[in-house]
């Protein structure tokens, strides 16, 4: 128990540093006079996300706090529509910043944290693929980090990747792809 407490304190410091680095880098790295004047606004509709509406809003807020080249705002016509169903959480990405998200209850019943699910699925919309590293410090590790992982925040690398995606109009997700949290049984 003492060891766990020590671990927690150590890791809190590390995580704190990671978060500071994450928010600091994009702001200082963006020159004042480049093309980043065109901040992309993505409208999302969480009105059909049933009990997950607040989690989706929180996921959007988390991203908005950390990136500057793109912002997620509630509105219509929506670029991103969020539904709730009884399957696994998944996202169908039409293109960078556009698509459909299903907040699947299957993962919630298992104990996965709804805000982490929401910000992970929004990460797909922002052009991030799944990376099932099992690490809780990664947002895109998704369910592979286990149900004890309640980290809803992207790490510094994930933040930088989204900034680049919107600055240079690229994406790590093939248009039309559906990315699902259903536990595929391959070895990573």
């Amino acid at each position, binding site marked *: 128990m003492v*060891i*766990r407490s020590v*671990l*927690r304190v*150590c*890791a*809190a410091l*590390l*995580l704190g540093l990671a978060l500071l680095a994450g928010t600091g880098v994009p702001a200082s790295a963006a020159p004042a006079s480049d093309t980043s004047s065109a901040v992309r606004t993505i409208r999302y509709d969480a009105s059909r996300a049933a009990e997950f509406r607040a989690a989706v809003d929180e996921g959007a807020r988390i991203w908005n706090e950390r990136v500057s080249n793109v912002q997620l705002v509630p509105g219509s016509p929506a670029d991103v529509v969020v539904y709730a169903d*009884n*399957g*696994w959480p998944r996202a169908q990405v039409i293109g960078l910043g556009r698509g459909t998200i299903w907040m699947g209850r*299957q*993962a919630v019943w*298992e104990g*996965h*944290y709804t805000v982490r699910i929401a910000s992970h699925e929004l990460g797909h919309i922002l052009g991030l693929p799944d990376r*099932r*590293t*099992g*690490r*809780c*410090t990664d947002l895109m590790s998704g*369910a*592979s*980090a*286990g*149900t*004890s*992982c*309640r*980290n*809803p925040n992207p790490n510094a690398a994930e933040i930088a990747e989204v900034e680049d995606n919107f600055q240079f109009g690229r994406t790590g997700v093939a248009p039309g792809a559906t990315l699902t949290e*259903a*536990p*595929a*049984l*391959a*070895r*990573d």
Partner: protein
Amino acid sequence: MRKRRLLAAIPVAFVALSGTSIAYADPTPPPTPNIVGGVPASEVYSFMASLQSSSGRHSCGGSLVAASWVVTASHCGTPYQVRIGTTQYNSGGEVRRVASRQVIGGDVALLRLASPASSAPVPIATSAPVGSSTRLIGWGQTCPVRGCGPAPVGLRQLDTRIISDGYCSGIRASTELCIEGGGGRGACYGDSGGPAVIGGPGAWRLVGATSRGTASQCAVSPAIYGDVTAYRSRILQIIGGGAVQA
């Protein structure tokens, strides 16, 4: 609330940073010895394939269905090579490079080998009725939590059965099979793409390709398999005369 969330994330973050293979600081349940809950392969399955990287790392299973064709799961991607017809994924049998991959439908794909294998392929069954006994074969991890252990070098098998689709949440009923699992028995990470067969020694027929679990942890609930019999005519059309008759 915020503080609690942060704290909960921490032990894992620390372990990940320290680079050990331990998943969590919490005690893990004792590993069950086997696919999960299976036994060592009772024979050399001539059609059994291990999908591998160029360094020979096992990622998925597969089934040789014709001299130059292996059925696997779409989500396994395109491996560098396959090792076929051995109970040890790192020795024996034969190794063939993979030339290309074609997605057949859902989570079922066909790999074309760069040169034909000499091992005996498995025929594709004509149907996979609910209630059938089936054998799962694979090098998937033998403990139920993702990443809890390495792929076993020795092939494992588990006898179970096909159950109604209703037991498998998220299943595509017309092209997938629900395979009984739970109580410490079932397919696990590394078994993807590998076979579910019916019949018996000398007369095995392929019915399924491992796709996914219905829970993040293995062997607590049924698993979903691509129904290879549903794609039988399509696959036979592609692999042509190289197929063996069921």
